[in-house]
């Protein structure tokens, strides 16, 4: 059986291009100058990926496009509140897309905060001065961990984050016991944690 997740994740290739630094610049140009060029660049970079995310989450083509538009418009509107040193642009956009999906596709109350709200809620003494540097390092590490994970672990985390499947649904999709799915998820998580712990 060919699994959607492994089929669409070519091992060792297809990892994200390094765009974070440039994205933070784009966001500040959007925020400060309301630059249309910057917005268009942001859209070109993220629009198709967010649309793809929504398609994988079960949206039809029109809804996926609407939600991708709405995600990027939210970025545009809130860019002024967003401070690049509080978290990465990419993670922020992921949380916006995720929450729109919960609200519009799942019709559930959204319980997760966006990263800009999380950053605001943090007492200032929890925010180290070199946060921006460590944010970039953390992202590099996360991507390195993804490259090293066994395929079966990449598969389950992809089915969770990208296809939006619960543990039970992943078990059904892969024909595995629920316990096996959970233990693969825990193993992947443990590697992520180990890779990041010295940046805490």
């Amino acid at each position, binding site marked *: 059986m060919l699994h959607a997740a492994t089929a669409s994740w070519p091992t060792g290739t297809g990892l994200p291009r390094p765009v974070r630094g440039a994205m933070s610049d784009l966001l500040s140009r959007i925020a400060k100058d309301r630059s249309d060029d910057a917005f268009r660049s942001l*859209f070109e970079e993220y629009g198709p990926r967010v649309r793809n995310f929504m398609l994988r989450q079960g949206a039809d083509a029109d809804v996926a496009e609407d939600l991708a538009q709405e995600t990027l418009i939210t970025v*545009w509107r809130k860019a002024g509140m967003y401070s690049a040193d509080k978290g990465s642009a990419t993670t922020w956009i992921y*949380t916006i897309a995720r929450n729109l999906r919960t609200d519009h596709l799942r019709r*559930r109350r*959204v319980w997760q905060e966006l990263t800009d709200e999380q950053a605001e809620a943090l007492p200032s003494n929890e925010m180290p001065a070199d946060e921006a540097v460590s944010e970039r390092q953390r992202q590099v590490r996360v991507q390195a961990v*993804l490259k090293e994970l066994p395929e079966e672990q990449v598969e389950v*985390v992809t089915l969770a984050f990208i296809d939006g*499947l619960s543990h039970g649904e992943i078990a059904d999709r892969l024909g595995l016991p629920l316990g096996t799915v959970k233990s693969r998820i825990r193993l992947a*998580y443990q590697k992520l944690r180990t890779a990041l712990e010295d940046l*805490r």
Partner: protein
Amino acid sequence: MSLSITHHPDDATLMAYAAATLAEPLAAVVAAHVSLCPRCRAETADLERLGAALMLGSPRRSGEAPLEARHRAVDPLPALARPRVSRDERLPAPIAAAYQLSMEQIPWRRLGPGVWHHRLALREADEGDLRLLRLGAGRTMPDHGHGGAEITLVLEGSYSDVTGEYRGGDVQDVDEDIEHQPIVGKDRDCICLIASVQPARFKSLIGRITQPWTRL
């Protein structure tokens, strides 16, 4: 409350929370815990970085229609007003905000000897069950198992069972194969936020009538 949190959600639960694939009542309890727990806030942020990396890495499909921005960033839009979360000292912010509730306003209903509850409405009723539970000081709860996943967050007071002691901010994240008999701390009532997701076979009318007591 956050000073002495020692029990956190299971790793697999927290990852599902970050991916937004948990059933709504479970997500509500995890959100409430995360709002109180710096450790789980940081962990959630790392898991969101993972989600972001996966989203960026999921390859574009060939032959897909080009995507044009419908809006132009020409006119400055007013910044979105961010709704201020009503801060209640005793209820976690996500719960206080979602239900416009404070601890003093909870309309407790008696469920059995030394047990009161208040049910919190979910957008989808079949997503499970979310409620606030107040257990009398010193009470021993009936020995019970679980029909499905259950997550409990202690808000005030404490209880203990075979797996340990749970105090303010602590989470007990159990799945169906655990049986336990919680004993409430002697000094004060224990107030919890509890979510459960039952398999379909427990959802009969009879089950719903008898379960509130037997499942505690």
